[in-house]
């Protein structure tokens, strides 16, 4: 035992010595040296200047010329954005906004960035869900409006000259103290709950449009157009209108150019079709209906699983949130059936989240929210990378010292060392626990930290209790020819029974 401890201690000592030597070999930065001694230290190599890392390689003219300027599309409709970014791969995601649906809210990268052809450009579109309600004819009126069920026309009041005439009240205003936005989100009209956002299929081929509009009934109509034949040139209703699944969506498909001029136009090489993918929204912890509505451009498959979450709540999705998925793809939602929910405590409303079984679903933890998976900024657009090399050393007090490169180089070594030390300690602890019986007599007892109680969700306890509820029995005598006419007593009319006393035979 002593030999083993000696070897372990020796190993630690060797490791620590090697770490110390590695640190000592790294020259310290000149910025840590006093200004009066800095020149001498720099000349003798005792310190090293730290400069920002700059890619000093000459710019390749050919490579630079292949980069294309990225046009700004913020504020445009998605169709216009597609037209401007035809050389790039366009990826879009949606966000609730008061802007009209399909309007580009953000763009990544933004101008004046330059990207090679085919690079990814992400745009965030408004889904139009926060659009304000239709304006009423006279917004100056503070009085509560009459109910929608009984709209009435307010005639101009000649007696009050200041009040402008009101043509008609379209819909009631939200209650006082409630913002319009929140009222729209939290209490949508009942009919809108069953409606889904109609995807935009303009410019798509007929097949793609049918795929996107799989939930609706597509009505096609042809029309000569300069657009390529078979492409959708008009749509009714247009995105972002909401429509009930099964509702007809009328599409006008181009039947090709109608004259020679249009044919000439059609002969021109068209820009490549935009490769379009959508960033999958995070719909976990939402009800299935909500999730289904949010994923209107995909095919949604519902898979019910036993879980402690409330019935109908989405506990997982595949592909995960943030994935770039083509419209029309199948999204599998795992929906809790609520069967493993904790029993309701009598007399008190126990929140489901306090029960062990109702912990956060594992799938939800793995699903990154779209906000968390923000698009990466291409390195080429980072302005810091192009900062020039400073040839004159500024005063120490004014220099923003970057990270010490020696320490930076040392970090992996230290990390590996720490990991090795932890692994060795864990190994020793494991061995100590295994042979604790022998060790207890030799070494003093070490108070190990108590292991945390691991809440293992047990299988739900299932009990059965069967019982037999015996029902009434009926008896039916089967009449035979020789007994059907038997002249029996009234009591025995309905039966064919013979009753005799034991004494009749043996008495």
């Amino acid at each position, binding site marked *: 035992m002593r030999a083993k401890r000696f070897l372990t201690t020796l190993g630690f000592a060797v490791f620590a010595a090697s770490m110390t030597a590695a640190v000592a070999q790294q020259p310290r930065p000149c910025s840590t040296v006093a200004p009066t001694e800095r020149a001498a230290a720099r000349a003798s190599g005792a310190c090293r200047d730290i400069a920002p890392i700059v890619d000093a390689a000459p710019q390749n003219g050919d490579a630079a010329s292949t980069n294309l300027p990225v046009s700004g599309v913020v504020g445009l409709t998605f169709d216009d954005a597609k037209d401007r970014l035809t050389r790039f791969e366009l990826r879009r995601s949606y966000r609730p906004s008061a802007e009209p649906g399909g309007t580009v809210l953000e763009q990544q990268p933004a101008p004046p960035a330059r990207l090679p052809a085919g690079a990814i450009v992400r745009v965030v579109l408004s889904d139009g869900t926060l659009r304000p309600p239709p304006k009423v004819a006279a917004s100056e009126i503070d009085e509560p409006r009459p109910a929608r069920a009984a709209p009435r026309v307010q005639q101009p009041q000649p007696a009050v000259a200041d009040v402008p005439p009101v043509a008609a009240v379209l819909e009631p205003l939200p209650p006082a103290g409630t913002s319009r936005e929140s009222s729209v989100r939290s209490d949508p009209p009942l009919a809108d709950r069953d409606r889904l956002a109609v995807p935009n299929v303009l410019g798509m081929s007929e097949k793609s449009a049918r795929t996107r509009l799989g939930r609706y009934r597509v009505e096609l109509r042809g029309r000569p157009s300069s657009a390529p034949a078979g492409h959708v040139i008009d749509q009714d209703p247009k995105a972002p209108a909401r429509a009930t699944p099964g509702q007809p969506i009328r599409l006008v498909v181009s039947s090709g150019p109608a004259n020679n001029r249009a044919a000439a136009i059609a002969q021109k090489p068209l820009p490549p079709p935009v490769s379009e993918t959508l960033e999958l929204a995070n719909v976990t912890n939402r009800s299935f209906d909500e999730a289904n509505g949010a994923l209107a451009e995909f095919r949604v498959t519902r898979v*019910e*699983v*036993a879980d402690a979450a409330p*019935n109908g709540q989405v506990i997982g999705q595949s592909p995960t949130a943030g994935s770039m998925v083509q419209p029309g793809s199948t999204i599998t939602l795992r929906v809790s*059936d*609520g*069967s*493993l*929910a*904790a*029993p*309701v405590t009598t007399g008190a409303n126990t929140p489901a989240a306090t029960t062990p*079984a109702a912990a956060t679903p594992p799938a939800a933890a793995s699903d990154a929210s779209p906000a968390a998976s923000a698009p990466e900024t291409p390195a080429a657009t980072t302005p810091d990378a192009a900062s020039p090399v400073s040839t004159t050393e500024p005063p120490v007090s004014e220099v923003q010292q970057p990270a010490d490169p020696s320490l930076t180089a040392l970090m992996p070594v230290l990390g590996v060392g720490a990991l090795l030390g932890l692994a060795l300690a864990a190994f020793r602890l494991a061995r100590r626990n295994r042979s604790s019986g022998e060790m207890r007599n030799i070494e003093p007892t070490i108070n190990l930290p108590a292991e945390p109680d691991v809440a293992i969700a047990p*299988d*739900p*306890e*299932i*009990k*059965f*209790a*069967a*019982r*037999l*509820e*015996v*029902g*009434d*029995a*009926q*008896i*039916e*005598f*089967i009449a*035979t020819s020789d*007994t059907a006419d*038997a*002249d*029996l*007593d009234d*009591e*025995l009319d*309905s*039966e*064919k*029974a*013979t*009753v*005799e*006393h*034991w*004494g009749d*035979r043996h008495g």
Partner: protein
Amino acid sequence: MDDGIKLRTPLDISHDDVERALLEYAKDEPTFSGAHRPLRNAGQQAAAELNRVLDVDVLEMLRRGWATVPSVSRAIQLSALKKAPPVIIRLDEHCVSSTSHLVLGIHVAQKPLPDLRLALELKADVQSATLAVREGRIELVALADISVVARLKYQSVLLKEHSSGVNGGPRDPFRNQPAASEHRTSVDFYI
């Protein structure tokens, strides 16, 4: 007749029967559909519990039917009042039918689920039976040919059916004698 035939012998509910019943039940009970999956592994346990309550003598079910016959019922009442020699009653060909219910109560994580109610239909065609009524009880003296059909159903879905004949019952000691019903006889009880 202590060693009579138990209901569980011909029926013998299996794991598959319970599975089918739960499947059908899940279609009707929305609250039950969610629990169907975890219950699937407990089908054997549920089948054992159902078989336990089926440990009922088939003849016990027949006695309930026989007791509805007016003469038998009256004999039972009279024999219970007075200690007297047994009254012998011979029943010619008849059919006893009864419908009972097997109720399976289910608790998942101490949360009760709606009961699963299975109908147990029993139909026995008896060629003849001779009963002795004594001290308020029906005793079977002799039993001729009998066939029993037992059906286990969930609503209209037949889960299991078994038909069998009951053999080994005591023979009718009066079989060769002319049946009393062939004569006009009065029914007399010594009170």
